């Protein structure tokens, strides 16, 4: 949270100092064709999905470039294991597996002679108490934001991620936090978008998903936000993945709870 505020501060300082922006053409090297693996296991009912795709050119429109004929296996530490079925090109799904809090999950992907593995522990769920709307000062503008309320359990090591959907559209801001500084506290951090013009409006339908994630997933979202979203805040680099074998992406077992609110 703190670093986020700081980088916003930097942006603000630049704004005051009359920065001007222009979209330009850049000639970028094309290093396409890197494997991207994305796998999520939740405590909700399955099926759970693992996708395998290839990176595309920056200058091209994004398309999901799925990779087929992979052998994808997901298992847990209680002996359950399942080979996933390819539903569409690059999209692999479970049929029987159930996500359970506290279990450790294993992912194995085989593509010809390439082999990728990952593990993730689904944390115990922290209850998502409620949502409320508040007005707050966003660098000088009063904006409406939504506040997810929950109480962090005592003992460090809890990490969270939030997804905010406004009127059916995913807010692409990354919201994540851990309890390094907030252990045991009730959390009342709002989901504030960095753009000062971002505000919720009357009758907006806001849906918030709260995920309890493990520390490797936290590291992934943190490092992605710091260095891989193109915003220029940190030193650009790839997110720190928990996938072994040289693929991009992540494998996350997490709990999922959703609350909704209509802005009054």
């Amino acid at each position, binding site marked *: 949270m*703190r670093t986020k505020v*700081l980088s916003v501060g930097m942006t603000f300082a630049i704004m*005051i100092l009359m920065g001007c922006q222009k979209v330009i053409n850049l000639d970028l090297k094309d290093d396409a064709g890197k494997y991207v693996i994305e796998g999520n296991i939740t405590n909700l009912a399955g099926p759970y999905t693992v996708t395998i795709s290839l990176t595309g050119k920056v200058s091209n429109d994004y398309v999901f470039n799925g990779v087929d004929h992979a052998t994808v296996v997901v298992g847990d530490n209680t002996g359950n294991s399942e080979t996933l079925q390819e539903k569409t090109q690059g999209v692999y799904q479970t049929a029987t597996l159930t996500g359970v809090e506290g279990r450790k999950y294993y992912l194995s992907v085989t593509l010809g002679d390439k082999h990728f593995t990952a593990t993730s522990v689904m944390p115990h769920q922290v209850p998502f108490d409620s949502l409320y709307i508040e007005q707050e000062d966003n660098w000088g503008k009063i904006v409406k934001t939504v506040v997810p309320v929950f109480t962090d359990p005592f003992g460090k090591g809890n990490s969270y991620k939030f997804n905010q959907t406004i009127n059916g559209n995913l807010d692409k801001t990354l919201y994540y936090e851990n309890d390094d500084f907030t252990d045991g506290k009730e959390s009342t951090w709002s989901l504030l978008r960095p753009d000062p013009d971002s505000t919720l409006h009357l009758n907006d339908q806001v849906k918030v998903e709260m995920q309890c994630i493990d520390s490797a997933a936290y590291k992934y979202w943190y490092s992605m936000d710091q260095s891989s979203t193109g915003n220029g805040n940190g030193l650009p680099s790839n997110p720190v993945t928990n996938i072994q074998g040289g693929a991009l992406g992540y494998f996350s077992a997490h709990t999922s709870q959703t609350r909704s609110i209509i802005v009054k």
Partner: protein
Amino acid sequence: MRLRAFYVYLFFLMVSSLSLWAQTKHTITGSVRAKTTGESIIRASVTVVGQHIGVTTNDYGFYSLTLPDGKYTLLISAVGRQPQTVDILLTENIQLPTLLEEQGSQLQDVTVTARTKGRSIQSAQMGVEHITTKEIKNIPVLFGERDVMKTLQLLPGVQAAAEGNSGINVRGGAADQNLILLDEAPVYNASHLLGFFSTFNSDAIKDVTLYKGDMPAQYGGRLSSVMDVRMNDGNNQDFHVNGGLGVISAKLNAEGPIEKGQSSFLVSGRRTYVDMFTRLSSDSTKNKNSLYFYDLNAKLNFTLSHRDKLFISGYFGRDNLSNADIFGINWGNATATVRWNHTFGPRLFSNTSLIYSNYDYKLKFSNNGSQFGVTSGLRDFNFKEELQYYPNPRNNIRMGVNAIYHTLNPGVLNAGGPKSGVNDTSFQKRYGLENAAFISNDWKVTDKLNISYGARVTAFSALGKGDFYTVNVAGQVTDTLHNKDGGIVKTYFTPEVRASFSYQLGGASSIKASYAGNTQNMHLLSTSSGGFPTDRWVASNNMIKPERSHQVSLGYYKNLDEDKYEITVETYYKALENQIDYRDGANVVSTGTIETELLYGKGRAYGIEGMLRKKTGRLTGWIGYTYSRSQKKIDGINNGDWYNAVQDRPHDISIVGMYKLNPKWMLSATWVYNTGNAVSFPSGKYQADGRTVYYYSERNGYRMPAYHRLDLGATVQLKQRKHLSSELAFGVYNAYARNNAFIITFRDNKDDPNKTEAVRTTLFSIVPFISYNFKF
């Protein structure tokens, strides 16, 4: 063993150079001062007319010259001053205080004839640049705020850290590898307003020396450069007030004698007022925010006896950036120096310094109506004793010791009220003791050959209560040492050798060569190039080893057309060890185990710098060109291959011209060009959880667009009144409105998020400025 043999050799070399003279000798000592102000003059030259013998004054204007008894004529001269000759009959030790008159008068002391001495072609010292505040005056800069660091950036081998930024990269070095001293006190964050201004108020500054390599042995602790800034002592003849009003700041300087000719004071202050304009704005994103800095320099000096002088100087500066309700940060330096000059007889000069330096920042946040804050900083207590011994005109020996006690506070979080949602948290403080001893000699071997040699030994100890971690290559803590008794955890001894020579060729030209070893035990971890106030300092410890550098350089110097022009060419190669960089995705602020986020490797920097300078006439100025490279090789970054450091900018050109139209008007122009920074741009893209993620195939494999800019300035002397002289300075920054890229970012197109846009942010287009300066 080989090293020991070298020291034995060095010792004999030093002893043999002190060979006794058969004749009776006596010593002339004195100080050289400015007539109107009583300010001591640094690097004034005292030469024996008709002989190739002379000395230069030290940092306190003191010199000592021992000669066989006889009749001599001494020529005493300094940059921008009228030279003086003195006839003496030497039969006993003589005290010869000298007052030099200024060339030109008062405020319009435009230094068209200055620098007649310029870069000394005789001295063995290489890679050095001297600047006096007079030279800074006429060079146009952003917002018209005269700034010594921005003037230094126009010299070969010195680059601006970023657009409009006062931070410097010297010969491919990182920003934290510059030792920046203000009256001997290290300044840990030498910039204001996120880098747009330096902490040095040019009104309070007397002299700046920048060593780009080949640092004399009395300096140590940073790899790339030493920037030695000396404050004015204060006028000990008359009381004066001068000041200025600029586009964004105002400043006032008062100085005068406490006891005429004996003691004086100086107080100088400055504050920006951008925030006062932004508060007038009707736009609430601007008027609720504040962004300003102020700083204060003060100095007192006393003549205690004809052998003793006491100087007390201090600096205090603070920046403030805040949004009314939700966020605030303020940061700044405070330094204090007490120095005592004492002469033990005519040939031994001593300076004892007690130095304090502090840098800290405070963050304030608000959550849920409750405030909480974070404090972090760094504090030094520093003792220095230095002796200068002048056995004869051919040798100048310096030796000394230095001890610094560092306290680093990585951060304390104060939770404030119960509703703030955070816990009180503090990271363990770190302590370091940095001891050093040095000795050096400037030896004029023959009329043509000068050799300067010396050695410095540093012992750095990490100590204090706390937990010290052993971290494996994967960045995991494998062992923790609980240092309960607070004793020494680890000590590093690092011997450094410095040596250089110059040989005068015919036709007012010379060649020089040098080698300098350096060690750095205080390291700045930064993810920004511009020196963000929250960048974190760490000291060497059981995991973080001292950074080392070895620099060799070679140079050619020539004065042309009766010293009207000066040509300098220097080339260097620098090897760097134990360089530090962040791991990918490092947690840069909120961690107590910072060692788990770091990687170590080596670096190299090399280049060639050329400069043609016109020193006299109505038109003065220079053309400088630098070709330089700076690279790093660190396991775990860029697959362990060499990669370009951020500051790698191969081509750099600067052209500076000042033209004295008439006694009233001075015109100036500067043009700079450099290759863009090395930077990481994406080489692919994909999505994770519905968000666009960029794929990076290598570190710093791209370049920013080339940077170039023209600045124009003019200074006009206004009508002189009885006691008041004043001038108006105005001009434009970025005269042809070049859209230089400050940063290039990538984002989803708003209408079609599957498309990617590269966005160039330009900080400053054309910016006019005007300022009014007065003196009475």
